[in-house]
């Protein structure tokens, strides 16, 4: 009749779980159902020791359908996308891809994007790259830019307007 998580008083969100599993299928990744919680992912997770990310727990919560608590959390943004979890999982599950799905969901739901991501996104929108050309300081304290070093002009989208039009169309697309 009902299942309630007594710590959060949340109930399984079966629709959202299906949405994420469908997305994983579309990208040819394995769905969360097959996880038997061996913990090999978390044992090797590069972000676990420092930032307490537990990939196996993410998969377990997805199996249980407790999606909102993950989408609203900060921990999903700690993943370094080293792909070790996906590489070593005996059931071919990719917690890293599940985390990307959750992060995409957080952004789409209007939650504030952490850190620098907004700036990176703005930069791609305006010049097509994550950041503009920087001047660098050499080991002997000189300041040089790209042309000083003898490198040619960088490659950027030839028609920025068309490029931006395309980007704004995709920005609202879900997988």
């Amino acid at each position: 009749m009902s299942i309630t998580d007594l710590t959060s008083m949340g109930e399984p969100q079966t629709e959202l779980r299906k949405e994420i599993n469908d997305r994983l299928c579309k990208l040819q990744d394995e769905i969360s159902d097959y996880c038997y919680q061996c913990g090999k992912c978390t044992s090797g997770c590069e972000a676990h020791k420092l930032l307490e990310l537990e990939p196996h727990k993410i998969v377990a919560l997805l199996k249980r359908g407790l999606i909102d608590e993950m989408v609203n959390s900060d921990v999903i943004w700690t993943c370094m996308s080293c792909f070790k979890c996906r590489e070593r999982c005996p059931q071919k599950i990719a917690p890293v891809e599940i985390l990307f799905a959750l992060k995409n969901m957080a952004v789409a739901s209007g939650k504030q994007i952490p850190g620098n991501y907004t700036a990176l996104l703005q930069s791609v929108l305006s010049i097509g790259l994550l950041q503009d050309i920087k001047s660098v300081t050499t080991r002997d304290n000189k300041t040089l830019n790209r042309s000083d070093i003898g490198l040619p002009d960088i490659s950027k989208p030839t028609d920025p307007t068309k490029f931006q039009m395309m980007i704004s169309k995709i920005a609202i697309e879900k997988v």
Partner: protein
Amino acid sequence: MSNRIGVFVCHCGINIASTVDVKDLVNYAKALDKVIVSKDYKYMCSDVGANLIKDSIKKDKLDGIVIACCSPRMHEHTFRGVVEAGGVNAFNLEISNIREQCSWAHDDKELATSKAKALIRGAVAKAKLLEPLESSKIKVVPEALVIGGGISGIQAALDLAEEGHKVYLVEKSPSIGGRMAQLDKTFPTLDCSSCILTPKMMEVANNPNVELLTYSEIVSVDGSIGNYTVKIKKKARYVDIDKCTGCGDCIAACRLKGRISSEFDEGMGKRSAIYLPFPQAIPLKCTIDNEHCLLLTKGKCGTGPLCVESCEAGAIDFKQKDKEIDVNVGAIIVATGYDLLDPQSLYEYGYGRSKDVITSLQMERLISSSGPTTGEILRPSNGEKPKSITYILCVGSRDETQCSWCCRIGCMSALKHVYLLKEKLGDDIEINICYTDIRSFGKGYEEFYRNIRGMNTNFFRGRPSEVRNERSHLSIDIFDTTTNKLFEIKTDLVVLVPALVPRADAGDFARLLRISQSADGFLLEAHPKLRPIDTFTGGIFITGCCQGPKDIQDSVAQSSGAAARAANILSKKELESEPLISCVEEDLCSGCSTCISVCAYSAIELVKDDDKSHAKVNEALCMGCGACVASCPSGAMQQRGYKDKQLKPMIEETLKK
């Protein structure tokens, strides 16, 4: 040819009746040509149903029967018996499958019923043309072949021998005993493995009904149930077994002493080129390894082979050759055992890079008092006693990228090791077990697990991602899901419990015997629940780990079962062969031999009658697979019970609108 056909429609409870209008079918059938009577019943396969058919045969003087029911794979055999008991030839019966191929495949009652009508229509058309057939008799050779001399093969051979049948027991390696001989103790009773094995080994060696063929391999298998011809190669030992006393002087003298990796010790120890696999080997005769022996590989052993010099009995004979013999048996039991997955497939666990990462079977050899360290537990890297030993379970098991199945014995063997290691190294030895589930399912297993839990063992529920070689020790990070904490284990010796896999040559071997493998590569049983010992090939049975991972008691039980199944055949003087086999219409046969080239059972030969060559089917060998029929360009080759002249009208009637 039948002129008086009875159609019997089964409800199969609601399996057929809920989707197909049975009453409608009965009426429909009654109106078909040559159908005299048409009846229905809830469960045609029951006694009541059988009597219904038998009574109708007598009363209505029927000479052909159509039963519309479930798949012939279920009850065709039973119904043949019923029809025969009623007085009609068993092969004047046609089964129309209106369950698996109709009521179970569709929802729409109207359409399903009309399809069922078409199926019955076709069946009646065929039944009109069926001919009575007689089974021929196959003489049974009351002797058996058991392939594999481990505990499974030994048990099967003993049971058959005690029943009074002669048994050839063929073993690839120089001694019988198999994996059990490599173990120190067995779970859950902690019996000494050799102590309980060797009496059986002695029994089977001394039993007058058993002919032991060790260091021998199967070359070919021909024939069929009741009468197999098997070619066996007895490999040359280069030792005269009548003279050899197994004293071992040659082993000590061998120029390559201590230089060759010992297979029995799983590479943890070394042996000579002339060797006894283990001290309790049966037969206790030496064997020369022709892949390493200097004289055999290079033609020269120093100034002369030292084994010959040291042998007082003069038993060494380098002139020996492989010998091939033929044996004739009525049944074959396959008990060829298993291998371990090479843990190098899981590179992250460091097997093969660090000497101190070993497999559970290698640890078994270290624990064993007849092992390379005479039972002392020493780190392979420096020969010192370990202070901490860590087990990683499920290495390659339950793993979609390696072996998807559970190895069944890993958990229990690891728990057994804990007991034995604590016994040897003292209670203080740190033993860590990294597990995903502990499967202690058998009789006495849970109690054993409880005892080990009470023995100061560190259980970590989780799976390490990798084993790091930090030169002086090994380091493992493991997330323990019971406490939700990440632990770093610094340990001296890591034991990997790998998946159990079929032997590397299982595929080739299966093809040799014409039996199948399941998707995991183990040999395929006829039905996983109800026929776990039979294969799809009559007269060939499988037992032990070659059928799938299992422990010793399940292997022994299955082997006794295999012996019973084999004895079933061997105790008969003759068997009835299925008459639904191929036959040649000699007038139409041009002798092109296409059928011979496709026959997997070598059951067809070309014979000359007067001036004309034509094909002839050996009825004892033919399996009725139909490949020859399909390949015959002239239609001369036909299959009894499925002749073109019977099938064509059936198809036409079925497809009629």
